[in-house]
């Protein structure tokens, strides 16, 4: 019974990781790839870790697994936001079918004044950058 539960959880987690890998290869744009990395892979790894916690059935192991899952859930959106912002500032092109760009004109990398938006989008960046 426990073995069946572990097998089901590990299968779902592995399927999510496989979908994340296929999306990483097939998506046309770095911003769409970032969506894949943050959501699907995080859920897949979390399910694999939960299956490990069920297998060991131990308090210390369960605590460790919850620490790892909490750490992943906290750091994955932060790193995705940072690398997406860096990619936008550098000037990565969006997919041509993306029709909404709310940051357009906000970060002028090519004029050398990146980080200082024309429109008041992000006030903290204006103070923080030198």
């Amino acid at each position, binding site marked *: 019974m426990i*073995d069946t539960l*572990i097998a089901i959880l590990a299968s779902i987690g592995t399927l999510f990781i496989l979908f994340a*890998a296929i999306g990483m290869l097939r998506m046309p744009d770095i911003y769409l790839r970032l969506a894949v990395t943050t959501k699907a892979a995080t859920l897949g790894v979390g399910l694999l870790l939960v299956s*490990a916690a069920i297998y060991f059935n131990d308090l210390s192991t369960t605590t460790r697994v919850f620490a790892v899952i909490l750490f992943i859930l906290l750091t994955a959106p932060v790193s995705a936001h940072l690398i997406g912002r860096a990619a936008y*500032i550098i000037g990565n092109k969006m997919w041509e079918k993306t029709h909404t760009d709310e940051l357009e004109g906000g970060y002028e990398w090519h004029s050398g004044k990146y980080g200082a938006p024309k429109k008041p989008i992000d006030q903290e960046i204006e103070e923080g950058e030198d």
Partner: protein
Amino acid sequence: MSLEDYLYFVILPVLAISVILIFIRLLKGPSIPDRVVAVDLLVTIGIGMTAVYSILSGHSTFLDIGLLFGLIGFLGTVAYSSYLEKQKKK
């Protein structure tokens, strides 16, 4: 088919296939942030493989390595994005 056989012959090969797919993206990614995202996803899959291997071997100590992987991947991504923002205009 026991749980060990299932994990060894189904779960780990699928994880390896996804690692290969992401490695293709790492090799041919058009820009540097693509490669950084690919490395981040590789490290995340490494955490999952560590969890599966800890079930297979019966040692729960391997889960600490997962925590270490997560820390290294996060710090690497933050450092890469910081230096990408600070680079000079070409």
